[in-house]
C-alpha cells in the first residue's frame, strides 16, 4: 500500500467514511428506512441525507479554506453539527 502514500489523517478520514457506510448498511438491514420529507425540499431516504450531509460538509470545508483564515476544525465542527441536523430533521 506504500504507493498510495497514506497519511494518518487521510487514513482516519477514509476509515470513518467506511465505518459510516458499514454502520448505515447494518442499520438499514435491521430497520429499513422509509423516504420522508423534512426541511429539505425533496423526499429523502437515510442514505440520501447522509450524501447531502457529506457533500455540503465538503463544500463547507472548501469555503472556510478559500475565504477565511479560520482554523479548519471550525469547519469540521460545523459540518458535524450540520450532518446531525440533516440526518435528524432533513
Amino acid at each position, binding site marked *: 500500500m506504500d504507493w498510495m502514500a497514506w497519511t494518518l*489523517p*487521510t487514513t482516519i478520514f477514509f476509515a470513518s467514511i467506511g465505518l459510516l457506510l458499514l454502520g448505515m448498511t447494518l442499520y438499514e438491514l435491521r430497520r429499513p428506512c422509509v423516504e420522508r420529507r423534512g426541511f429539505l425540499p425533496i423526499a429523502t431516504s437515510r442514505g440520501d441525507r447522509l450524501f447531502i450531509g457529506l*457533500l455540503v460538509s465538503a463544500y463547507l470545508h472548501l469555503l472556510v479554506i478559500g475565504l477565511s483564515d479560520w482554523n479548519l476544525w471550525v469547519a469540521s465542527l460545523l459540518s458535524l453539527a450540520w450532518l446531525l441536523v440533516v440526518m435528524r430533521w432533513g
Partner: protein
Amino acid sequence: MNKVPNNKAWWLVLPVFLLVAFSAVVPMMTVVNYSVQDIFDQSSRYFVGADWYRQVLQDPRLHDSLLRQFIYSACVLLIEIPLGIAVALTMPTKGRWSSLCLIVMAIPLLIPWNVVGTIWQIFGRADIGLLGASLNQLGINYNYAANTMDAWVTVLVMDVWHWTSLVALLCYSGLRAIPDVYYQAARIDRASAWAVFRHIQLPKMKNVLLIAVMLRFMDSFMIYTEPFVLTGGGPGNATTFLSQTLTQMAVGQFDLGPAAAFSLVYFLIILLVSWLFYTAMTHADKQ
C-alpha cells in the same frame, strides 16, 4: 402492493463494485492522499495539511479557467439543446430518408476527439483552410490563432458540430416514443403546432432531455482534447479550460500536491451538478 425485499440480490452488484473500487475508488483515495502532502519522490514526502487547497482556491489562474469553463459549458448547453430539439423535430419520421438522416447525424459522433480538433484546425486556417480562407476572402478578418473572439467562436462551433447530433438523436428517440393518440387528440382540439410542442412533445421529451443536458454538461465541463489540438489553449490563455490547466499543473510542472487538491475541487463541482441533475430526473419520474 407490498414488495418483498430480497437483499441477497445485492451480491449481484459485487462484481461491478469491485471493478469500480479498482478503477475509481482506490485511485481517488490516492489522489486524496497526494493532496495533503508535498511529494518529492517515493521516500521523501511531507504532510502539509490543507495548504495545497488554500493555494489552489486562491489561485487567480484557476479562478479564470473555472470562470471560462462555466461560460463555455453554459454556451454549449444554450446552443446545443435548442438546436438539437429543432433538428429532431424536423427530421423525417419514416422511410429511407429517416435512415439516411440518422446515419449522417451519427457520423460526427464517431470521429475521435483529436481528429475533430485537427479537422477544425485545418478547416479554420486563414491561409489554406476552407472556412478561414473563405471568411478572409469575404473581407471578414478571421484568425483563431490570434483573436480571442475568433478562437472562442471556433471552439464553440466545433463542439456544436461534434455533439449536437447526440442531443438530436436522443430527442428523436424521445419523439418517436410518443404514441399517436396524443397527436390525434391534439388534432381534434385543433391545437397549434406550438401547443403540440409545448404540451405534448416537450413534456414527453423531458427525460431524454435531462440525460442530454447531463451528458453535454459533463462532457463539456471536462473538455480537453479538442481545444488543446485546435488552439492549444490560446491565444494567451483565452481558451485554456479547467482540465488543461490541471494537466499543465500535474504533468507539465509535476506539482502533484496542488494538482491533486485541484482535481478534488473539480470532482466536487461535477459531483454536485450531476447529483442535482440526477435528483431532478428521478423526482420528475415520481411526480
